[in-house]
């Protein structure tokens, strides 16, 4: 079985050139830019007031909820990609998923899957996860 890896070498080359560009810009600026430290420059900028306390404090639990939901729905999305690409594709040698009992089976499976996702969504909605107040 032939591999797709040789196709990827332009991406690796591109990545190397981007890294070189980023490093080069930072280095040039590092060499030619002046450096004049000052105690006021070293303070966090808070509109001219002296900062009170540390910036890394507790934050709203809502952000965690969004992260968890994102995980659920994004993984579900990843499952959908292979199906969306292959289920209705026309290939020259004929798509085994098209026509016949297999197409109906895949269709029903996907309907069940999407219903489960919709139920999960409605559950989260009723729990008030999407309400930011």
């Amino acid at each position, binding site marked *: 079985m032939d591999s797709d890896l040789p196709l990827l070498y332009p991406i690796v080359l591109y990545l190397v050139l981007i890294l070189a560009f*980023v490093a080069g810009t930072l280095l040039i600026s590092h060499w030619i830019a002046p450096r004049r430290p000052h105690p006021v420059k070293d303070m966090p900028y808070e509109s001219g007031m002296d900062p009170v306390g540390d910036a890394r404090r507790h934050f709203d639990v809502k952000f965690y909820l969004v992260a968890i939901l994102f995980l659920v729905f994004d993984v579900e*999305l990843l499952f959908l990609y292979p199906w969306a690409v292959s289920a209705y594709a026309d290939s020259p040698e004929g798509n085994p998923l098209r026509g016949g009992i297999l197409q109906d089976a895949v269709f029903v499976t996907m309907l069940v899957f999407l219903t489960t996702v919709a139920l999960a969504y409605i559950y989260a909605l009723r729990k008030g996860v999407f309400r930011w107040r």
Partner: protein
Amino acid sequence: MSLLVTFVIIVVVMTAILGINSYLILLERKTAAWIQDRVGPNRVGFDLGLPFLKRLTGGFHFWGLGQPIADGLKFLFKEQVVPAHVDKVLYFVAPCVAVITALLSFAVVPFGPTPTSANPDVFPFVIAPNIDIGIVFVFAVSSLAVYAIILGGWASNNKYSMIGALRSSAQIISYEIPLGLSILVVAMMTGSLNLEKIVARQAEDGFFGWNIWFQPLAWLIFFTAALAETNRLPFDLPECEQELVGGFHTEYSAIKFVMFFLGEYTHMITVSYLTAILFFGGWHFPFIAEGDSTYPGATAVKILVLAGKAALFIFFIMVLRWSLPRFRYDQLMRLAWIVLIPLGLLNLVFAMFVRHWELSRWWLLPISVVLFVAAGLIGTLVSTQEKRVIGHAHQA
């Protein structure tokens, strides 16, 4: 394709992106000026304000075209202030991640005609040709950009940066889901994630084969979500100036600040190209750039058509920025979770039915319109009802 050709393409693309980026900032300022009835930057010519160059150009201003060059040089020569309380390593890594992810996501985006099974002899105008995961690669890489913002906000140890980064991370991951859902429908129509094949498929069917005719709703969802992903107004909560000074890049200066902006503008270019490729036929245009047009210079015309379509979307994004007010944060999250995700799912289910029953693709156009109108009606009803409830609460 030989290594040298690939190398040349990469260098040309990178130079073009960086050059276009700096002039996009000038275009943005000129657009703002045009909308607000001002003149905009028009003083800096190619003498860059330097006396010894002024003698060469005769003091002509060139309509401000020297501004991006002067800005770039200025940023390079500025002091890089690193505040005392930052996390040094992460503070340094964050802007690099922003640039790298933004530039790298352009690797599989075709910017001109590419070889197809019908005409395999075409020169491939794309950095990495024939990558079958195509659009998934773009999303995988460009969603890493959220790390730039989170790391930058966290490392800065500044309250504005921290709040900006938190908001931004929640916003970007929320809008990733509708973005993916809108792409799924396109993948289902084409049977491939390869961007070159998606363009070829649309070009085969001519003007009425463009995906926009069958998927206007998917385009709307895609464009809205992509705007939120690039942190552009009306979704620029992470850096809203009136509340958070500069948001996640408050503590960044000089070249590191430029890198964040480079990332944002490159992302904008990629999104515009993707919109043109996925929904508006790529390089295809009726009569002048068909799949079988072989007149001399046809290749150049195709590249220009695609660039022109992308430029239109970039200009549209800029006009949007100066026309729409910013969302409130709860409205922003509601739009993603309560409006766009259900709409995307419904759109997907209907597309699935149309494909399964082998109906004509044109069924999808009225379905899209009906879904859009229904969503608008339900949204208006719900929001007026909520206003009534809030009004009663105030009276009581």
